[in-house]
């Protein structure tokens, strides 16, 4: 079910390093050969990679389907925007605060929600998105309601007397790329830790996991909070990149997009989710040039995916590695 654990993936590890380095090099040089519009599409894809990584930890590794990622994404976006607009705090503070606020809010939401059984849990997380949007719309004193918050400053860094502002697509691209790389490393370390093994055990069989002493409820709560932190960080980037946030940041469409990234890319694999976000978010951004056809094309694409690649693209990537392995 999960190529990450299969022997094939184990033997392919030595090839992954040069390929990973090549891809990283390519990513670093992308602004040299890509125009501003494709670069913008990649930036959006990399921003969505963060909540998708969080959802992957929750769904792909722990087996919990949550639709709440958009809620935490929105919370992160608003937290960051409010700090920047009202207090003029530097970007890195807003960014970290967005993650912390989202994670902290996930605690009281997760405690009751995780007591629910599978389907009820999904419905409950869906409720969080709707409540989030209602608050953003109606707490006008704080959020300015439907008008949203505008003129969020572009990220700037202040270290002592020196400060500089990340403006322009290329600058933002490198900022987001660096953050996405760090986030990917963080997910990798979590998944590879003994806790990651316990998470997989919970996904595979919760009762059996309990019978070997794993406190499953605590793990689920911790992972729910970690996933919210990732979503909040993504929301912060989103706010600073678009420089506006509105109640539309809390929309179900974002939750389903994150779900499509994880399921389409390959739940329970890191490379699948990276691939998924580039494909599904990058592609929809790129398709904006043909707006009428965009959603139709996207719909057909998803149908094709379900029929031909029910486990997402990750098995395909796995097969690619073993193919290279045999050629060597």
């Amino acid at each position, binding site marked *: *079910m*999960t190529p990450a*654990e*299969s*022997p094939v993936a184990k033997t392919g590890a030595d090839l992954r390093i040069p390929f990973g380095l090549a891809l990283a090099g390519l990513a670093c040089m992308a602004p040299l050969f890509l125009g501003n519009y494709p670069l913008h599409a990649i930036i959006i894809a990399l921003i969505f990679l963060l909540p998708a990584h969080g959802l992957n930890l929750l769904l792909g590794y722990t087996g919990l389907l949550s639709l709440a990622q958009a809620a935490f994404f929105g919370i992160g976006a608003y937290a960051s925007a409010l700090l920047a607009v009202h207090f003029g705090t530097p970007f890195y503070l807003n960014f970290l605060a967005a993650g912390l606020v989202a994670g902290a809010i996930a605690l009281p939401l997760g405690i009751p929600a995780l007591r629910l059984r599978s389907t009820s849990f999904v419905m409950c997380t869906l409720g969080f998105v709707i409540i989030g949007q209602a608050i953003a719309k109606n707490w006008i004193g704080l959020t300015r309601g439907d008008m949203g918050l505008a003129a969020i400053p572009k990220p700037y860094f202040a270290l002592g007397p020196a400060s500089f502002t990340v403006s322009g697509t290329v600058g933002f691209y490198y900022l987001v790329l660096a953050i996405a790389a760090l986030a990917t490393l963080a997910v990798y*370390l*979590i998944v*590879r*830790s*003994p*806790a990651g*093994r*316990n998470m*997989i*055990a919970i996904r*595979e*069989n919760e*009762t*059996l*996991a*309990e*019978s*070997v*002493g*794993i*406190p*499953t409820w*605590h*793990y689920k709560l*911790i992972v729910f909070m970690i996933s919210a932190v990732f979503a909040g960080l993504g929301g912060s980037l989103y706010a600073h990149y678009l420089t506006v946030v509105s109640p539309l940041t809390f929309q179900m469409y974002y939750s389903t997009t994150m779900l499509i990234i994880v399921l389409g890319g390959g739940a329970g694999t890191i490379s699948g989710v990276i691939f998924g976000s580039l494909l599904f978010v990058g592609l929809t951004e790129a398709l904006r040039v043909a707006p009428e056809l965009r959603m139709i094309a996207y719909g057909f694409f998803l149908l094709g995916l379900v029929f031909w690649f029910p486990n997402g693209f990750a098995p395909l990537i796995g097969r690619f590695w073993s193919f290279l392995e045999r050629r060597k």
Partner: protein
Amino acid sequence: MSGLPILDISGLCKSYGAVRAVDGVDLHVDRGEICGLIGPNGSGKSTFFDCVTGLARPSAGAVKLDGQDITGWSLSDIARQGRMLRSFQKTVVFSALDIEENLVIAGQMFTFPGIWSTFGIGAAARNRVAALRERARELIKIAGLWDVRFQAAGKLSGGQQKLIQFASMLMPEPKLILLDEPMAGINPKLIERVVESIRLANASFGVSFLIIEHNIDVVTSLCRRVVVLDQGRKLAEGTPGEIVQNQAVREAYLGG
């Protein structure tokens, strides 16, 4: 201390509405003993196990493990102590993972001091996992599963999965293991292997057992003492010889 039974259960009851699945059962397992628990289907054996191991909450009664009252504790809290572990009637393994990973998972919570330490990525965490792997490999060899150790556990036969489950339970060096029908649905040759494994664990590692089993030959050969449940109550208790001769047991369970 050593005179105390490892497991001491008194007056255990479990009701589901008006139905009394377990009705005031007293039972103890002595240190180093292999004790059998038999009875017809629906006699409350599995419910009894669930109440003892924390999967279900007993309605009344007390469960003492090693002198400590653990009545009403949760499954994972009891298991995390590493003293008493259980198997399930329907064999379960972590299907997508190979045997070694199955065993490492089964040992992790007994090696790491807390939840947060399991997120560790440093040398300390790596050394702990390496030690677990070492022990897992030993147990895999003993269980005779070495050749298939990299296969996904879910792809293996029912009998092999039983052996994985059994080896998993030995990871934390428990004092007591509760087995729920360990011989169900496995072929005679593997039955011998599982019986041998139980004997070995009992003799070499000093593990006590409480075993639910329908295969009366297995019960007779392994256990010195057998408890019979019927309709949630204790019907009889004694050596296998006494039980087989017991008129009430023959009528209720062994069939004339």
